[in-house]
């Protein structure tokens, strides 16, 4: 599997500065991800798991520590890393195939190869027949399928998923989890999913990274030694899930909500 890669996080720290005060969001994250591995990152809100993913994709800069992809430090965004956001983020004025094609805008392939890649990935996510549909004509689940196809069409070495099914209803979510499992097996790609759904984390992940908040740290890493494809009714998964859920039961200490981290003004301005 030479097309996949190892992601290595070493002593990763991220601090926001809010009104002159340092607010640590990630503290000393160390994690190695093997080629072709499926890693789930689970934690309650505020544990910095989404920030971690934004660091990996390159949308957040200024951090301490190292993020290495195949031994090379990650700088900014790159086509070798794909992402699926919680909100599908499709461009409403583009059709399904045009939205997927957006990812290929800067790929070196010929138009013919691009068209083939788009068609192949529409088939991969099961959306044949919807090539020319616009986002407003799609359900939430279908939109997220398009987003997955868009994330994969560049054949990235790693696909990052930021609570990709968090906004979907339970049935659609269950369906897409199975689909994602199938796609992962078919594409043999490294995937990192961030979620607050322990069931989802255990169903999909080869390992589940449990995070704890304030500041975001890795509490422990739970291996899920159950072969894929997995069934959600598997008793082994249920045992692991219950074990992880106990972590969160202890962690529940009542406290007032903290001041939300406001994005800085520069984040809104155009980066060019």
């Amino acid at each position, binding site marked *: 599997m030479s097309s996949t890669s190892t992601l290595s996080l070493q002593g990763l720290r991220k601090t926001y500065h809010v009104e002159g005060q340092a607010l640590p969001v990630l503290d000393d994250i160390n994690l190695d991800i093997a080629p072709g591995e499926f890693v789930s990152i689970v934690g309650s809100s505020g544990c910095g798991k989404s920030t971690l993913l934004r660091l990996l*994709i*390159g*949308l957040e800069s200024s951090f301490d520590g190292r993020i290495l992809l195949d031994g090379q430090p990650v700088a900014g*965004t*790159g*086509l070798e890393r*794909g*992402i699926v*956001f919680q*909100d599908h*983020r499709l*461009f*409403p*004025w*583009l*059709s399904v195939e045009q939205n997927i094609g*957006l*990812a290929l*805008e*800067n790929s070196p392939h010929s138009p013919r190869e691009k068209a083939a890649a788009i068609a192949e990935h529409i088939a991969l996510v099961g959306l044949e027949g919807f090539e020319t549909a*616009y986002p*407003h004509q799609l359900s939430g689940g279908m939109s997220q399928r398009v987003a997955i196809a868009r994330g994969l069409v560049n054949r990235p070495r790693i696909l990052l998923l930021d609570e990709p099914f968090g906004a979907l209803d339970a049935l659609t979510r269950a369906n897409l989890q199975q689909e994602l499992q199938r796609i992962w097996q078919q594409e043999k790609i490294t995937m990192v999913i961030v979620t607050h759904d322990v069931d989802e984390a255990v169903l999909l992940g080869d390992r589940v990274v449990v995070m704890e908040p304030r500041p975001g740290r890795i509490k422990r890493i739970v291996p899920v030694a159950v072969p894929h494809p997995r069934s959600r009714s598997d008793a082994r998964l249920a045992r692991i899930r219950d074990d992880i859920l106990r972590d969160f039961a202890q962690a529940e200490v009542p406290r007032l909500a903290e001041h939300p981290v406001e*994005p800085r003004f520069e*984040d*809104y*301005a*155009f*980066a*060019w």
Partner: protein
Amino acid sequence: MSHDTSSRFDPRGLALPGLVLALWWGATASGFADTRIVAPPAEVLATALREISSGELFEGLLASLGRDLAGFALGSTAGLLLGALLAVSGLADRLVSPSLHALKQVALFAWIPLISVWLGQDEAARVLFIGLAAFYPVLFNSHEGIRSVTRELAEVTRVFRFNTRQRITRLILPAAAPQIFAGLHLALIYSWLATIGAEYFFKATPGVSTPLLDGRADFDMAKVLYGMVVVGLVGAALNAIASRLEQRSLKWRRSR
């Protein structure tokens, strides 16, 4: 689902104009109305046929539409460029926008004395006046439209490593298109109004308002009514063309 019901023809809309036409005809034919003040429909029609056959209608239309489009192009280009600048540069926005909002309050027609002193009474002054009418709606709408590009979609373009040109053509322009089109649409209507105003308030010149001016001077009400019909029809046609273009280029939007 995405059919626009307003564009479908409904004959019930003809009832009121038909009634007005009938009353108009009845009032003038029966002698109830003074035909010197209310010209009969037949006379208006005769005037129209005369103007068409003499070529004066087309000459006037050509002159007016020419200056209308010149002013529209000038004003909307300036509005689009400045609107884009204000949307992407926070500094420019803070420096210029308050003044522009204040300047907007100066009624369009209050510019006429100043423009005529600076540029005289001729075509340059008329085109500038029309351009001013087109400028503001395009400026404010393109400013708003470009600013409404969400951070979420901008991040997607960063993930796919778009360069500046790709960001503008693939994200910013399409995202701002609905508002830019709305601004251009308004500008097209305003600049037509301003075209009539420019022909009225600057030195007389051939155009669609010639029958209005001549008709008033000669107390020829048929000519005045004919002139009003022409101005109205051109305005309606411009509006219809703009709506059509707008709908075609924004077909991705969900039904309104």
